[in-house]
Structure formats: structure tokens, C-alpha cells
């Protein structure tokens, strides 16, 4: 089983990202589960969302304490949230940032990768909505999921131009991370 934890802020689409990841993983032939851990529900408050991907049906309902992968949608969360908590040594932590990974001194042996998802989102989608972009980055960095499945899931949720632009941004982030691997 692969476990993914997404850290974001209310309104950034962390929960949607986890859901889209579950839809995409199922399309890839896996079983999946996605669920949120809401704080107080309001824009800006720290939020966690979780996705599990497995070959067999998933029964476990607890939150994810030892993730294989962590996605951080907003680097300012690092000041208040231990995003690397429990992350497996051979795991990957993806941070939305324009800085190099070396800047982030986190208590983990896992590989840290950064992607400037905010810039990609502003350039291609026209809004600083980074959740789908980071899913593209996740696919590129981990190879756990096909980018086509993510694009398909996103297009289904956001039909028309919005979906198309998101798909474009996903592919861009995917290619950037693939190059870094």
C-alpha cells in the first residue's frame, strides 16, 4: 500500500487533490481511498488530506502517520506544521516553492523535491491554484501514477477550458519533475 499525505491551507484544494488522486489511481487499475482531516473549516487554516493506493480493497480508516509521500502546497506551513512527520526514509517530499530543495532543512531522510507550482499555475491557469499542478509533479517525481489518469480525472471534475488549462499545467509540472529524478 502507498500512502500520501497532502498539507495545504483551507481553500487551496488539498482535499480535491487527494480525491482526484484517488480517482486517477482507480483508473490506473488500483484500489484507492481519499479523505480529509479538516481543522476548523475556513480559508487559510492548515488542512491535511490523505490518499491511499493499494492492489486490494482498502479497509483501514485511520489517518496517515507514516506516509510514503508528502505533498506541501504552501511552504509557509513548514513554520507551524511538522510536514515530514513519520515520512518513510525512502519516501519523497514535494514542496511548492521557488527555492531549491537544499533550502529546506527538515528532519527526514526522505528525498526533498521542489516545484514552483504557484508560477506554473499563474502562467498557465491564470490563478494561484496549485493543487492539480502538484499532482502532475507527484506523478513525475514518483512514477506512482500515470499523468494521463490525473489529467482525465481533472478534466472530468472541471470540464471545458478550466480542465484543459489544468491538464496543460499538470503536464508541465510532470515533465519538470521527471527531468529532476
Amino acid at each position, binding site marked *: 500500500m502507498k500512502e500520501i499525505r497532502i498539507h495545504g491551507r483551507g481553500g487551496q484544494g488539498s482535499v480535491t487533490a487527494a480525491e482526484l488522486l*484517488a480517482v486517477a489511481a*482507480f483508473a490506473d487499475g488500483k484500489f*484507492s481511498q*481519499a*479523505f480529509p482531516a*479538516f481543522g476548523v473549516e475556513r480559508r487559510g487554516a492548515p488542512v491535511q488530506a490523505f490518499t491511499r493506493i493499494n492492489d486490494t*480493497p482498502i*479497509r483501514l*480508516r485511520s489517518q496517515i502517520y507514516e506516509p510514503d509521500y508528502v505533498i506541501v502546497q504552501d511552504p509557509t506551513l513548514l513554520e507551524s506544521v511538522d510536514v515530514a512527520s513519520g515520512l518513510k526514509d525512502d519516501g519523497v517530499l514535494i514542496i511548492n516553492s521557488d527555492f531549491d530543495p537544499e533550502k529546506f532543512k527538515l528532519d527526514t531522510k526522505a528525498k526533498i523535491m521542489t516545484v514552483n507550482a504557484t508560477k506554473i499555475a499563474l502562467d498557465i491557469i491564470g490563478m494561484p491554484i496549485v493543487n492539480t499542478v502538484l499532482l502532475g509533479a507527484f506523478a513525475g517525481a514518483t512514477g506512482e501514477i500515470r499523468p494521463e489518469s490525473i489529467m482525465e480525472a481533472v478534466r472530468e471534475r472541471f470540464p471545458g477550458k478550466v480542465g484543459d488549462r489544468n491538464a496543460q499545467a499538470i503536464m508541465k509540472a510532470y515533465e519538470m519533475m521527471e527531468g529532476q529524478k
Partner: protein
Amino acid sequence: MAHEMKMNKKNMVVVEGSYAVAHAVKTCRPNVISAYPITPQTHIVEDLSKFMADGEIPNCEYINVESEFSALSALVGSSAVGARSYSATTSQGLELMHEVLFNVAGMRLPIVMTVTNRAVSAPINIWNDQQDSISQRDTGWIQLYAENIQEVSDMTAQAFKISEDRDIMMPSMTCMDGFILSHVYEPLILLEQDITDEFLPPFKPERTLDPKNPLTFGAFADPHFYTEFRYQQECAMQKALKKIESVADEFYDMYGRYFGGLIDEYHTEDADIIIMAMGSIIGTIKDVIDRLREKNVKVGLLKVRAFRPFPAEAIMKVIRDAKVVVVLDKNISLGMNAGALFIETKSILYNTDITVPVIGYMIGQGGRDIPMSTIERIIAEAEEVIISGIKKESQFTDLKEELI
């Protein structure tokens, strides 16, 4: 009867638990829906409203109201005229319905209501436990608890069938853990329209509110009669015990899916330790059991699906030969220092020859997460009970002493 699941992955879709429920409600062809939005039930009524707006639920009215009290009151009228009636609520909303819950059961109206289980204020808390529905256990509603979104979707059709049976005519709550199930995305087979039309025929009650043939529902009953009405309700509940089982079997025959009748079992055959629980925690417990079985710990699970009517016989049969029974409760009866499932389980064993020790844990209050390690620790403590007897009969779990 063996229940081997025949679920084809090709027929599954990944959707939110709330959508699965709303879709199931639509598939059951309701005639009247009335509900008031409240977290974490909101997505269910939003999806139903969308179905209504898109014209996807024919021959149905969605009545907008200003409170949960009014929502259920509206359904008293609609159900009495013979309309299949549905609502959904949780927590404070359910508690606000308290008075009407008795009316619905007393007038023998087979309303079905989804409860997205949530803690009750104060302090205000929007997260999951089961205090809300457990606090309504004496209102005369059948209460079923689901472990995943497939089960709660399927349970919706089962609940209508059970409630509308002419021998029963009692309302049902289908309970799903708030957020944990209402907001989870996972694969399931959405309730099939063609099979459901066959499984659940249109609601045709014996007695309806009809101006051409005037009747009074819930009329005055003085001390000469009141007891007998209460007795009839109890008789219906006892009949529901059999009906819940037979409807689950019939559902299995037609849909190929089964999640238990009154109860379900997992590795109980040879179990020394039997855990009893209700709702979404079941899945986590099953994973823990698989882990411990590899280490030869003889532990099994008794999933309680029906809390009302209470399946005393079924439970006794399963736990009779165990060495210890552990009951997990997402609720507390304050002043008893115990949860309801624990109290009921203990009470059915008195006056019998079953002498298995029973211990209780109040767990997952107000959404506190239940990791596998917590269940493992509880099982380790249960192993101690087998060796040296009960030290603490019932207790809070994962209490943070440093906060008190």
C-alpha cells in the same frame, strides 16, 4: 448461509460517500425529501438538491424547511399519506428532532433517515463519534451502522424495505460515521436502478391519510390504551430482528453484496478475544486482526450492524465460547462511565450461563483518530484480562492526562 461477495471492479466508481448515499436515495424513488443542511451531512442534501434540480428524481418533492424539527415534521405528514419519505441529519440536528422521532415511531411511519454520525456540543465539535444517534436509542427507530460507503449505500434500500414491511412499520436510521465515511472517496458499485425497482416495490401502506377516507394518526391514548400501543411497537421491533436478516439475505441474492444482517463476523470461529464495534472502525479492526493473526493471536471481530433492535441472541451465540469480549463505543453514558454497546452487551448476559468477561473502551470521541496501534494496545490489555482478570471494566481511550 455463506455470503461470497461477487463485486466486479468494472462496475465500480470512485465517488464521495455522501454522493453514494444521495444516489442510493434517488434510486429508491422517494416521493418526499425534507432536510436541513448541517455538517457533515451537507453533501448528501446538496447532491439530492442537484438531482432534484436536474429532474433526476421523478414524482418527488423536496421540501425546504427552517430547521431539523420542521424537516422531520414535514415527513410525518408526507409519510402518513403514503409517500416514501427521506431525511438526513446529524448531531444537534438530530437532537432537535428528538420529540418528532418519537412521533414518527409512534405513528408507525416508515421514514428512512441517514445520520452522518457526529459528536454533540458543547464544546462544539463537528467531527465524528456516535453520541448523536446512540442518544436517540429509545425513540423507536431501527438503527443500522455501516462500515464503508458500499454498505451505507446498500443499507438505504434495505432500510426502506425493512421499515415499510407491513409487520414492521417502524422508521430507520442508517448511520454512517461523519467525515470518515461521508467525505471519503473510495470505489463502490452505485445502487443499481433495475435491481432496486424489483427489490423495493412502491410503498403501499395499509392505512393512509386520505380526505376521502378520513383517519387520525397519533390520536389520544389514555392510560387504558397507551401501554398496548407501546407493546405493539416492541413487537414490531422484535419482528424487525428477523426482517433485518432476511432482507440482507434477499439483497445478497439479488445484488451479490452482503455486509451482515444484524451482525457480521470476522475470524470469530476460534477466537479467544472478540472485539465488538459499530461503524467505520470495523475496517481498521479487520486490518489489525489480520496482522495479529499472523502472530497467532486468536482475535476476532463481531460487527454490530443493528443496534436497535438489539441482536441479543445473535451476539450471545458468537461470544459464548470466547475468553474475553472487548466492546468499543464511540459514545458515553455520562454517570455510567461506559458506552451504550458495552452496557447492552453486559445486560443481555446476566441471567444466562455465559460468563465471559466483558470490558469496554470509549473511543474516538469528537473525531479523535483511531490508529491501528490503539486497537493493538487494547487487544494486548484484553490478553491480560484472560490471564489475570478484569482490572478496569470500562475506560476512556487515549486520554491525554496532561490536559486535565
